[in-house]
């Protein structure tokens, strides 16, 4: 059954040029953002100026192994909106072409259709994680001057954290596409909410956190998984106490993210089952 779903979803994706184009854009955005950050950092520490030496002294080298897994995960996470567009496109296309109806008419259960999309989101997450891993490794090799004595995989947990974060945020994108059904409206809401509204809400809850004794902003849909990858300690040392707290809270956010992701998919199954197609 699962193999049939994978085969069918692959038949849908294999010849879809827009899908591969966006995957290509993702593929170049990850080395792009990390490369720009790395070379900007390298230029500043290579400078003989006082400020350059100060940066070097304060930050160390966040791109060297094992920190590269954390730093590139943090930087790459800003570009999750590109694979999110891919995921929204995959679900809204089915509505646009009415192929979601045809899939059911041809003999799929409604649950099978959502399982198909679940597998597609897993596939996109895997592709994105591979890009991240390649960039983290490449940047790590470039930035690490002396490999001996370095535990390259000391921060390898960020591979898992990054893929969990991507999967969670792509799942939210999927749910938006399923609910809204119109591609451009879904993209608009995703971008507006994730880049603007949630940051405003996050700031509001941070302001109120002293009064309320809790920062509800940590539990907003994107913030839950954003907090899986806090600022790398070498950069976060400017606010070391908060950074330490954020790193200590990662374990809790793994649980919250898994619960949120499970809820998103259960809701997707429920909506598709109950809705007229």
């Amino acid at each position: 059954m699962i193999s049939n779903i994978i085969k069918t979803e692959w038949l849908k994706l294999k010849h879809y040029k827009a899908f591969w184009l966006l995957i290509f854009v993702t593929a170049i955005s990850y080395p792009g953002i990390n490369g720009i950050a790395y070379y900007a950092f390298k230029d500043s520490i290579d400078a003989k100026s006082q400020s350059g030496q100060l940066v070097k002294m304060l930050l160390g080298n966040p791109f060297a192994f094992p920190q590269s897994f954390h730093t590139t995960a943090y930087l790459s996470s800003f570009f999750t909106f590109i694979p999110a567009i891919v995921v929204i496109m995959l679900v809204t296309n089915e509505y646009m072409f009415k192929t979601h109806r045809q899939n059911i008419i041809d003999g799929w259960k409604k649950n099978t259709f959502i399982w198909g999309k679940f597998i597609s989101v897993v596939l996109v997450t895997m592709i994105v994680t591979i890009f991240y891993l390649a960039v983290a490794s490449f940047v790590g090799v470039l930035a690490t001057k002396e490999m001996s004595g370095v535990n390259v995989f000391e921060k390898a947990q960020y591979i898992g954290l990054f893929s969990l974060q991507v999967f969670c945020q792509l799942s939210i994108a999927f749910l938006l596409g399923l609910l809204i059904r119109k591609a451009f409206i879904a993209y608009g809401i995703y971008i507006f909410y994730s880049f603007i509204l949630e940051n405003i809400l996050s700031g509001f809850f941070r302001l109120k956190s002293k009064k309320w004794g809790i920062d509800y902003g940590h539990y907003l849909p994107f913030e839950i998984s954003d907090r899986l990858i806090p600022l790398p300690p070498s950069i976060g040392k400017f606010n070391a106490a908060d950074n330490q707290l954020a790193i200590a809270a990662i374990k809790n956010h793994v649980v919250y993210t898994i619960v949120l992701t499970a809820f998103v998919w259960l809701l997707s199954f429920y909506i598709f089952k109950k809705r007229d197609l």
Partner: protein
Amino acid sequence: MPVLEINAISKSYGKIKALDAVSFSIPQGSVFGLLGPNGSGKTTLLSIVLDVLQADGGGYKWFGQPPSFLQRKKIGSLLETPNLYHYLTAVQSLRITQSISGRGNEDDIHAVLEKVNLHERKNSRFSTYSLGMKQRLAIAAALLGDPSVLVLDEPTNGLDPVGIAEIRDLIKALSDHGHTVIMASHLLDEVEKVCDHVAILKRGKLIASGTVESVLSAEDCIVLNAADQRFLKECINGYPGLIRLNGTAEGLECYFATGTSAAEQINRFCFEQGLVLSQIVVKKKRLEEKFFELTAE
């Protein structure tokens, strides 16, 4: 055993009752026409039996069994519009149909494309097709793997006259090979040519169903003419079994309960009344005429 039994299916969209306790069954091997004006509920009914819409009440059985996805795999369906991936070619689209339904194989894909005259364009993307070609591809998808039951919602949409005739021949051929074809259509002439059973819906209510013959022949119609039409009217009014009269340019249309009229008896009856008829025509009612009669406001 009927292929499909529909039992008191109801469906509403807000205050609008799209289907109101519709019940009928579709015999195996029949070519079943589902007729009705726009908005009568034909597509809604087909969508419910294909699990695309959920009924508010009632139920249905395919092959005597409660509904299941396994039954849908065995049914070739075209619902409303061709629903295929615009960026895929005909062959790639049919591979998806094949993968989901399990019907047919790679050779069958090429065979159905030849059957619907699309083989030359098999490697063109769906988005480059004309409306008629899209319709042909959707029919090819329904035919894939030679399913024993086909559900075709407006199968001749967008087709030219040659295409319509081809689909008619195709449906006849399917029927000759024992397939059951369930077809919703506006083209009453086409339905009359290919269907042996019909159901007529009006505003979500079933107003007639059965064999085409039984639906059409609820009344017999005989057109009479005589030199004195007024005397003809007076005279025929006394004939037992007469339901109603209708004066037309062709003559006086006389409607009788089925089986109560015979041209010879009517001729004798009039002659005994002292009237010589100049014309007696037994009129076969056409489906279109019956449809307008049944669905008239």
